[in-house]
């Protein structure tokens, strides 16, 4: 589904990602761990093609096609979707109007909006005056309406109160897997995702397949998500850096 080869990216003249290699197979949900400032969000923004994220070298292969130079729209139309951490305010653009334009299945969108209590935000301007949790629910609703094959989720649980995390996690899980319960079936029919998480809380609700650890703009390690999370909790990221240095 997605293959990143030797990707180096500059933001504001500063090299943030250095030779990143990463892969997400079809139907897989991979996780990206890493300390603050490691470049996790930059990687997701670069994958979506946002301006200001300049690819210096390397390539992004999506569905077998080199998308490194494609526009944001082209990537979205190929089936990529993103939930960013701090989306901009869109004054004058009502949430309902945007949903109408992007919904592939309006009825399903309305139903999801009901279930995550977003109907009352339909006439509000997108993101304007939304709380942290409301932004996440709004983003999730938009992503569901858009229904992409490949989801980039940047810390979906941040800013969400404990009581709402379950709702959010379950909604993401439904969005990713739809009705596929069997792991084999999921690989064939489910969606793919790359998820950034700091706390790992969202992993209680979604099945993940592989984790990558990003430190200082470089992939340090990859492996089983749960094992890695418990290792990070015990040892911290410094151990990952040391481990990587040992390999060199």
């Amino acid at each position: 589904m997605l293959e990143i080869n030797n990707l180096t990216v500059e933001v504001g003249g500063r090299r943030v990602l250095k030779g990143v290699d990463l892969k997400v197979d079809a139907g897989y949900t991979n996780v990206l761990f890493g300390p603050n400032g490691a470049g996790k969000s930059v990687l997701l923004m670069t994958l979506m093609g946002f301006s200001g994220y300049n690819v210096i070298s390397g390539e992004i292969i999506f569905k077998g096609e080199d998308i490194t130079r494609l526009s944001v729209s082209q990537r979205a139309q190929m089936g990529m979707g993103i939930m960013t951490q701090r989306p901009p305010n869109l004054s004058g653009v009502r949430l309902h109007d945007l949903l109408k334009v992007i919904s592939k299945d309006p009825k399903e969108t309305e139903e999801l909006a009901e279930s995550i209590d977003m109907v009352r935000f339909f006439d509000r301007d997108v993101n304007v005056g939304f709380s942290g949790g409301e932004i996440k629910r709004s983003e999730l609703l938009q992503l569901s309406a858009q229904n992409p094959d490949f989801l980039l989720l940047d810390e979906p649980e941040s800013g969400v109160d404990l009581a709402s995390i379950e709702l959010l996690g379950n909604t993401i899980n439904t969005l990713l897997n739809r009705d596929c319960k069997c792991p084999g079936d999921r690989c064939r029919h489910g969606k793919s995702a790359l998820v950034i998480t700091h706390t790992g809380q969202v992993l209680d609700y979604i099945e993940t397949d592989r984790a990558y650890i990003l430190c200082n703009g470089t992939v340090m390690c990859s492996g089983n998500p749960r094992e890695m999370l418990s290792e990070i909790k015990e040892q911290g990221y410094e151990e990952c850096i040391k481990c990587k240095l040992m390999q060199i």
Partner: protein
Amino acid sequence: MQADADMRKKAEDALGKSAAYGEDFNLDEYSAGATDVRYEQNLTDLTEEDKRTLLNVGFTPGEENRSGSLIMVDNTIAHTSLHDKDGVELMSLRDAMKVHSWVKDYMWKLIKPDADKYTAMSYLQDANGYFIRAPAGKKSKMPIQTCLLIGSKQVSQTVHNIIIVEEGAELEVITGCSTKHGVEKGLHLGISEMYVKKGATLNFTMIHNWADQIGVRPRTVVHVEENGKYISNYVTLKPVKSIQAYPTVLLEGKGAFTRLNTIAVAHPGSELDLGSRVIFNAEDTSAELISRTITTGGVSIARGEMIGNANGAKGHLECHGLVLSDKGTQRAIPILEANVQNIELSHEAAVGRIAREQIEYLMARGLTEEDAIGMIVRGFLDVGIQGIPDELRADIDETIAKIGENAI
């Protein structure tokens, strides 16, 4: 009579007096135009082209959801029809002067004939226009629609409108200003004096759809009494040579309120000098001035002015201007003046391009760049104007879509 003669002399002297703002038009280049135009009583019998012209300024020829209709072509009233005879009066100003002896007491009271050459010209030509009056306590459920049309080339259309909303009454007026197909050059001079009396409400929407070489010089003053409300929507999204207007609302009674919305697009070659002025002359009066302008290559000047002369006055002024071309100009000129202590006037003004991250946010949802810009522009210009016919809304959408395409 002596007073009339004095005023006439002053107006004659003012024929050479340029306006404070905007391009100076030579009045000698324009004629009076057609004088014998008559439209069908049933406006649905008009040609498709004429109907389209009317629809594009919010005027529905079928008169669905309208209390009455009036059309002025060049300097002639070509059509008048009234369905809600109990709730509202609608006729030409000349007819109103015959019906009501007191109409003259409302004429040239808010606007001085010698203010500039355009007011002087309108005075000296004894300009006709519409007279709309909502009797005390009457609340007409549907709006009156009027259209001021330039139908001949090189015409100077002079208009004098009077609107009176008597105590406790409510009235809605939609005025469309347009040119007939093929008319390129012309001048529209419009005097509008509006009176909103105690506890009354006037909702006034004006939609412009002129042509490339039309000059427009409206002069509007609104007088609002105690607890009266005046809501104005001023819409000009199509190319025009030059509009210079500075409508003024006088809040003269305690608790009076006004909201003035201006939405405008300055196309290449257009100069839009659109101001709004509110003068708070009574206690506890309030006002909101909202200006949303876009330049795609023309000059847009948004003047907003609030002058507080009475305690308890509150006002907020918002001037936002989008720049969608390297060639256009956006100028926002907010003016706040407090002449007493207990007053709250504020403003926010911003001009600039659409933030790239907003466009890309929508692109990440699958919209093309054109559609993303269109959606943001539509949202930017949406100030919640009610009663716009579907055809006009579709025309506005088309204009906005073109702006999106051209902005890339």
